[in-house]
């Protein structure tokens, strides 16, 4: 027997193989795309075509009122991993000039003695995002917000590039021998808290997560408490609020002390 006669309806293997396969396809398609969806009143389908579209996974536009707008401002920055990772010298230079206004609080080298956050060596995308959020009103701070309000988008990029370019300076409380507390090293899986380092560096760095090492203990603690209480809510998709709300006050203290002691 040659293959020629295989592809012929007279060959029982061909007719049975194709016939049975085809029948199963048709039956399962009718059941899966028409019959089963129509059996489900919750889907509120109008007719067969609607059933087929629904079961085939054709997206349907959400009706009005399907999404609830929050009654506060949220961040309008879209974070990506590459955002502002390429600095250019002109931008850094302009940023240096602009940053003189910031030095009284954030320190001439981007390192503050006054519990204002250190900015030296911070990822440019982070500084940029925070400034944007201050300006847009997504993050509010009476001291800081007015400074951001007057900045243009390019100003923010330049300042961010400048601070990213400055070297990190080890803090006064540097103590690399301090062991990482459990909340930092492993998080708390049962409370849905990943290790801090899986976003903030050490393990991995996820877009928009600030570098915490050497930040003032007071500042870190204040931010975690603000996230937990809802006083700060500019974190996209509640990444930090979901974590901070689940932390105990002991854990907040430990994390703040630990990160303040890191380079």
């Amino acid at each position, binding site marked *: 027997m040659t293959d020629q006669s295989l592809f012929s309806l007279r060959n029982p293997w061909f007719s049975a193989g194709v016939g049975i396969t085809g029948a199963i396809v048709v039956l399962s398609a009718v059941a899966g795309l028409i019959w089963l969806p129509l059996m489900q009143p919750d889907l509120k389908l109008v007719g067969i075509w609607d059933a087929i579209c629904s079961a*085939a996974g054709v997206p349907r536009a959400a009706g009005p009122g399907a999404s609830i707008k929050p009654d506060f401002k949220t961040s309008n920055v879209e974070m990506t991993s590459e955002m502002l990772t390429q600095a250019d010298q002109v931008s850094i230079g302009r940023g240096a000039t602009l940053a003189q206004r910031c030095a009284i609080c954030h320190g001439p080298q981007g390192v503050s003695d006054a519990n204002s956050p250190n900015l030296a060596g911070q990822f440019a995308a982070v500084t940029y995002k925070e400034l944007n959020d201050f300006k847009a009103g997504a993050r509010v701070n009476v001291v800081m917000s007015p400074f951001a309000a007057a900045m243009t988008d390019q100003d923010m990029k330049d300042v961010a590039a400048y601070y990213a370019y400055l070297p990190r300076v080890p803090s006064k409380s540097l103590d690399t021998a301090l062991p990482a507390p459990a909340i930092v090293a492993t998080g708390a899986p049962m409370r849905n808290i990943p290790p801090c380092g899986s976003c903030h560096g050490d393990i991995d760095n996820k877009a928009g997560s600030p570098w915490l090492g050497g930040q003032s203990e007071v500042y870190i603690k204040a931010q975690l408490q603000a996230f937990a209480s809802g006083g700060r809510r500019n974190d996209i998709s509640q990444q930090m609020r979901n974590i901070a709300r689940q932390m105990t006050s002991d854990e907040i203290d430990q994390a703040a002390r630990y990160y303040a002691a890191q380079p």
Partner: protein
Amino acid sequence: MLTNKRLILAHFWLAFIVFAVALVLGAWQMFVRSPLNAWHINPELYYRSVTAHGSAMGYVFPTLIAMGFGYAITEASLEKPLVGRSWAWAGFLLVAAGAVVAMVPVSLGLASVLYTFYPPMIGNPFYYIGVVMVVVGSWIWVALMSINFVAWKRENPGKPVPLAMFANVAGSLLWGWTAVGAALEILFQILPVALGLRSSIDAGLARVFFSWTLHAIVYFWLMPTYIAYYTIFPRAIGGRLYSDAMARISFILFVVVAMPIGVHHLFADPQVGAGFKFMHSVFTGLVALPTLLTVFTICASAEIASRLRGGRGAFGWIKALPWSNPIMLATALSLVMLGFGGAGGLINMSYQLDTTVHNTQWITGHFHLIFGGAIVIMYFAIAYDLWPHLTGRALESFGLMRTQLWLWFIGMIVTTFPWHYVGVLGMPRRMAFYDYANPAISPEAFSVAMSAVGGLILLISGALFLLVLVRGQLGARGEADAYRFAVPLHMPVRIPAALNSFGLWLALMVGLTVVNYGFPIAQLIALNETSVPAVYVGVGR
């Protein structure tokens, strides 16, 4: 008649070396996340290890076994030297080089994305390039198997192709087509992002492509095992294969229905419609058929062998089987693990039940039992069976082989039964750290510790396995007779063209793929705004 012994041995040795390294990592993973270990490491190391272990065990090890065994089958069953010998070496070198290229970034912590790639996570491009090299190397093998098959048929018109070769070509064709999904995913979606040409990725579409590969790849892993069931086991226990035609039909069914069912890995994913999930479920149900046929045929073949040896009674014949024969032992233990694993698989394939075990440790327990247990134990059997013919030296440590096989079986049961159980309790998979002090998770502590002990037993068994092979390689030279495959009860003289060729079945395989995957893929490609920003791992630490 095995002529290219060094080629085949090279495949097997590399496979088992990769296996040994990955086995150590597996045992370490088991230990390090168990309550026997106070947590002290960077969790990233865990994911690094799981990526290496999964990629080695899932991609490199079984591929090399299938290739090496495939070459052995070609020469032994067709009784002529392999056509395309230098191509075969090129394929081998490509797989070996690919494994190294992939593993370097993984060990540096630059690609801890796990072997399922998990887009939008993106690792170092060399990881993916290495995986593609492994796949392309194996495609050379796929092509060579068909070339040898066709060449033999041309020289022997009208004669049935030996069953072992028929099954081998079935496995190679299945792999050739199923690997296309992951290849499309890597080449068109992941690599452009990993190379920095794009910064966003359609993660939903990428997962659909991966599911195209993910189910049938398990049948590719399974093929050498099933070939051993049908063509080595009956001969090794001094019996005959119950039915040659039944065997061919089983392999054909795998070719046709193993492919269009991968969406059962996406039950919990929103980007595929429920109707297509249902269609894939229907075909998933069908794929149980060839396995049931196989279990029946193999048990019938065992009964024939036993009755030939004087076994009698409804069940008494089981006692009369040659239990001291390692192949007998391996096959029986493999079938037991296949039974338990298959029962678990029925749970995974049901839409509703799957929601209770999805992404829990149940899943890892399940595939270790079936893949690491039922399948890999037959890889051991294949090696034991082939070794004397490849090395020209007898394997004499039968006691050691039996101990090794028993330890693998016991180790697998001790590892995977508690592993399933903690999954039912809700323990998630792919997590580095569990807080066993927490009252919600402490009931799982004992079971996880037990699994870790099982891992240690498996490690010992793996070491014994290598010991047997090394001793075989150093043993006394002895002339092994020609390598033979099992003879069926009724030797086919002429068989229908459908059971001696693949044209029809390939057409059905591709056709079903188009029916079951065409619309979901086309729709996801057509939809705008389905891409998400890539999450690069291992950068900016």
